[in-house]
């Protein structure tokens, strides 16, 4: 393909690619393998090799296509078989040894292997009503509406033609041909899109502020420094549909009047970086980046910058310092980036997901987007659903859905019959919510009101095996490790909070410590330079608000009810024990004794509280008790 010189040519190319590569319209059979980072981690590359070998053995000339993440991580590796005129069938948890049968029965004989099927994809192509689930009948997809994820897992992210076939770059064409920059901004403002990085500022308004700023050149920056533990939304989009981000950034550049865009991607995402590089090169070759894009007179470049491993660089001023080649330390705001950003020029920083939604908003209109979700938080939210949940994966849901629907209807609840304890949203700078908050609608304002935050999209579910003191301590450890050290409240406050939490977790805490936590937290929130320090106390404050009795148990009773904090609990075999002997075999200390079908006993002196017996018991025959009980019992004997 050579460079496109006009918008008419872009439309022609779309029509040409549609008939050749659009899913569902294939004229030849195709095998599709999910080759995102998580797919590969689950063994997709081995499955790929087995399929390749199987096809070669039978001399079949069937294309193997690699795609990004379709979201349902728990079912990886995923393989799809697409026969002409038939729905695309997806197979779950595919192993290399399953390749031969899939080829034989489905590809050659046209009989899908029902036992291994996840479902049939109902992809009606671009322009389909977004509310249709991607896999009818599969609970994980039941309540999802895919806007930013619309192409993830469907197209080969390394082929620009596949993006074009699904209306790719049509929004850019529309903006350049039919809209003035102010029209684009008005459309974005009308859509009500709020920044998906977590803070929820109106994207259109941010663009307008940058457009109105004096001076130049102006810059568009994509924050792809996704550092929250438990979050992989941005990675999946960059790996699965990199062109959507480039298109969104280019539209932003046109609206703002910028000459260049920068993507700041964390170095821990090598595949995302590689795919972005490929995508930028392809967009250049087609004339969708560079000089005089589509003959419109608008010129624009996008550069890729790799991070170097610093969580604080997800903060916009620190991110810009890092692009400039300096230590990634934040600066006080104002001035805001829209006035003085990268190299002190007006700059617009948005998250990957925000840019990914822009083309769809421009193409389908502000009203369409505003009609999804809630009036104050229109559109969809993307979450990485992880932790103690059956269906781990990446989901996109309309704002306003409840936590309960996400966790139980989409996520399938907790595995092994465990009971829900809390859900952490917003990562290490967010907060946790208890069971009583499960009916909270998921949107920017409701979550804050409930005591958590939207954040950039990590959602971690924990059960009663998680200790809320240790959980908060873990987040504090993370945040204080990642504090850049520039401002005192964050640098010292984080350490002091961590010390208090460590004391409590070790059974040396006092009730005054709870006041101490609140005192330090208040000062950090008010006095820290950037969001990292301001939000570091979030998880511990939320935990204290909803699980205060657990903190008090650690302090007053010297008891960790979850059985996590070493020295604050013991295991005891209770009357539910049927004497099966599983725990005897599991104990690394040989501390458990007892005859067959008799209640077993733990030797408390030999026990190291490793929890093996607790985990292995199928009858809830092992209880967690305060260590003081053991001491009392020993004294009584």
């Amino acid at each position, binding site marked *: 393909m050579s460079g496109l010189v006009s918008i008419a040519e872009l439309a022609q190319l779309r029509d040409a690619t549609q008939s050749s590569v659009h899913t569902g319209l294939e004229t030849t059979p195709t095998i599709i393998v999910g080759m995102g980072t998580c797919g590969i981690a689950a063994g997709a590359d081995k499955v790929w090799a087995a399929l390749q070998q199987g096809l070669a053995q039978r001399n079949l000339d069937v294309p193997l296509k690699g795609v990004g993440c379709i979201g349902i991580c728990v079912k*990886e590796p995923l393989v799809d078989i697409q026969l002409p005129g038939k729905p695309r069938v997806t197979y779950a948890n595919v192993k290399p040894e399953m390749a031969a049968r899939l080829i034989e029965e489905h590809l050659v004989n046209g009989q899908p292997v029902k036992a291994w099927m996840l479902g049939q994809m109902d992809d009606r192509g671009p322009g389909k009503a977004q509310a249709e689930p991607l896999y009818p009948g599969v609970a994980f997809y039941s309540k999802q509406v895919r806007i930013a994820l619309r192409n993830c897992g469907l197209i080969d992210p390394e082929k620009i033609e596949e993006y074009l076939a699904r209306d790719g770059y049509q929004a850019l064409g529309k903006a350049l041909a039919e809209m003035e920059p102010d029209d684009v901004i008005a459309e974005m403002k009308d859509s009500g899109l709020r920044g998906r990085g977590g803070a929820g500022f109106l994207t259109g308004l941010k663009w307008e502020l940058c457009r109105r700023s004096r001076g130049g050149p102006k810059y568009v920056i994509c924050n792809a420094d996704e550092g929250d533990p438990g979050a992989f939304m941005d990675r999946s989009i960059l790996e699965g549909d990199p062109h959507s981000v480039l298109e969104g950034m280019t539209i932003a550049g046109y609206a703002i009047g910028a000459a260049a865009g920068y993507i700041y991607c964390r170095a821990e995402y090598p595949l995302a970086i590689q795919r972005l590089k490929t995508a930028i090169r392809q967009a250049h070759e087609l004339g969708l980046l560079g000089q005089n894009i589509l003959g419109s007179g608008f010129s624009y470049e996008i550069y890729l910058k790799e991070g170097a491993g610093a969580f604080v660089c997800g903060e916009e001023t620190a991110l810009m310092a890092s692009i400039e080649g300096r230590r990634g330390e934040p600066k006080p705001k104002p001035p805001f980036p829209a006035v003085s950003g990268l190299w002190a020029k007006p700059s617009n920083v948005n998250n990957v997901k925000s840019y990914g939604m822009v083309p769809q908003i421009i193409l389908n209109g502000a009203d369409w987007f505003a009609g999804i979700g809630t009036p104050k938080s229109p559109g969809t939210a993307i979450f990485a659903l992880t932790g103690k949940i059956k269906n781990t994966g990446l989901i996109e849901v309309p704002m306003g859905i409840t936590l309960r629907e996400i966790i139980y209807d989409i996520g399938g609840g907790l595995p092994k019959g465990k009971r829900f304890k809390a859900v952490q949203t917003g990562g290490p700078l967010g907060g946790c919510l208890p069971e009583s908050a499960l009916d909270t609608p998921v949107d920017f304002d409701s979550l804050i009101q409930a005591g958590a935050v939207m954040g950039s999209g990590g959602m971690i579910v924990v059960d009663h095996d998680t200790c809320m003191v240790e959980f908060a301590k873990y987040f504090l450890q993370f945040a204080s490790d990642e504090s850049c050290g520039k401002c005192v409240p964050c640098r010292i406050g984080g350490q002091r909070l961590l010390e208090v939490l460590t004391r409590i977790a070790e059974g040396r805490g006092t009730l005054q410590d709870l006041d101490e936590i609140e005192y330090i937290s208040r000062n950090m929130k008010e006095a820290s330079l950037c969001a990292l320090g301001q939000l570091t106390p979030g998880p511990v404050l939320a935990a204290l608000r909803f699980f205060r009795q657990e903190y008090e148990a650690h302090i007053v009773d010297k008891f960790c009810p979850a059985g996590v904090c070493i020295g604050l609990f013991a295991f005891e075999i209770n009357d539910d024990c049927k004497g099966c002997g599983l725990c005897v075999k599991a104990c690394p200390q040989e501390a458990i004794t007892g005859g067959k079908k008799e209640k077993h006993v733990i030797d408390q002196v030999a026990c190291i509280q490793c929890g093996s017996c607790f985990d292995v018991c199928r009858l809830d025959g092992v209880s967690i008790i305060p260590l003081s009980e053991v001491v009392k019992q020993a004294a009584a004997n």
Partner: protein
Amino acid sequence: MSDDQHTFDLAPLERILKEYAGQKGAVIPILQQVQDAYGYLPREILVEISKRAGIPITQLIGVVTFYAQFHLTRRGRHLIRICDGTACHVRGAPEAVKAIETSLSVPAGGTSPDFKYTLEVVYCLGSCGLAPVAVVDDQVHGRLTPETMVESLRQLD
């Protein structure tokens, strides 16, 4: 340190500096590429970068020590990055770390005496659905147990 007697081939450095000559804000990409070429950032090389690119050594050290990615000491042949992000943490990553530390005599954050392994505990590799996860020499291993982890590491040469 034995590094002091080491003499380094400067050809890769020259190639990298030439590639970025005159570019704004190129300090981090230069350091990244130099570290790729030499395995870490030896003092002599940093001094050379400073001289040749006209960047004060204090600024270079400031950047190097700020970012977790940069290393000033020699690393093991195999890099094990084990994730202790939230999802991995609740799914047993600490046990896997302990097992590797004791079985392969490599401390977390350190390098084994024979320079075979370097073990890093990192926060979130972004594959939480497969927790616990480790990356060994850029290969991702998911759903691991302490036993499978140690076994696959022993098999590296």
